[in-house]
């Protein structure tokens, strides 16, 4: 009789521990891990993309190296995250430019000159060699870019690298 009853009642162990089925979760994590490992870059330089700056896309496959990071948008010129000067609709303000030489941006030159002469930074390889990473918005006209390039080369930074995005 007792044997027959046990066949119809579910066999519940009272003191068994509750186990979560984590197989599916592990599955998901494995996929995520693979994806993240694939997008992981070994580049030693961190370039922080600026807000409202759209980089041009290029097929270039050269990794960035340590350099002074300049960023140029239609509204501001920055070194790292510090604003150097404002721009008005992708054009430099007249007060920032030298009267005789309209390609010369005074605040940028002063800042680069300070970096080149500062006691803490001047011995760094990228400053000695004069390397600059330029992030510029893709819609900027060449005339504006040229002013930055010209001033940089005048300040002793002739090696200009243009930052581009990988894409089609």
């Amino acid at each position: 009789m007792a044997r027959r009853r046990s066949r119809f009642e579910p066999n519940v162990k009272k003191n068994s521990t509750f186990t979560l089925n984590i197989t599916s979760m592990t599955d998901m994590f494995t996929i995520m891990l693979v994806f993240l490992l694939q997008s992981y870059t070994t580049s030693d330089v961190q370039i922080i993309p600026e807000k409202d700056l759209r980089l041009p896309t290029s097929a270039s496959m050269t990794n960035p190296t340590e350099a002074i990071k300049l960023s140029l948008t239609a509204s501001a010129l920055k070194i790292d995250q510090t604003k150097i000067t404002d721009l008005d609709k992708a054009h430099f303000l007249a007060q920032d430019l030298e009267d005789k030489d309209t390609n010369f941006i005074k605040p940028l030159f002063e800042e680069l000159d300070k970096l080149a002469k500062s006691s803490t930074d001047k011995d760094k390889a990228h400053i000695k060699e004069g390397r600059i990473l330029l992030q510029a918005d893709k819609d900027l006209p060449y005339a504006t870019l040229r002013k930055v390039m010209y001033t940089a080369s005048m300040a002793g930074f002739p090696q200009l690298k243009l930052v581009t995005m990988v894409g089609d």
Partner: protein
Amino acid sequence: MRRARKIKIDHNSEFELDLAPLLAVMVKLVPVLLVSSAFVQMMVIETELPQVVSEAIQRQDQQPIPTTVALEMDAKTGIRLVLNEKGQEKAETIPMKDGHFDLDLLHEKLVAVKKLHPEVFKLEISPEGSVPYDEIVKVMDVARQARDAKITFPVFDTKQGKNVETKYMFPEIIFTNMMEG
């Protein structure tokens, strides 16, 4: 007889793997990788800026006049491809196509130039002031290497002492009109 019954193995029992430690590792790895991975991959194009003094010296140094390839970009008329061969200038104009530079035609012309002069790696570009940065980068891209993987150019490798094939056309880009007013 009794003992034999004791070691009877239940072949239908399910084998369960303990995934908890594996999960613990993944939970830690995923945030670490999330923080350090760059979702926007950025690369650089290397360019040289002519320096006032060094350029003047270089020009004097270059006694046997080398072949130079120059692109003059104008947002209205298009690209003028100037090939300077032993002091003789040959110019070709590549007109605009639908308001943009005709990159395909430019590429064809550059491949033809490179085939004639495989020793030239420098490309001098002088865009006009209103040309957008994006267009300049596109032109540089077109000039850097041949699109067709079959097209290669011979380069003399001094280490190996023989010609090596390369797909690069003009990887060294110089902005020449930087110093002009």
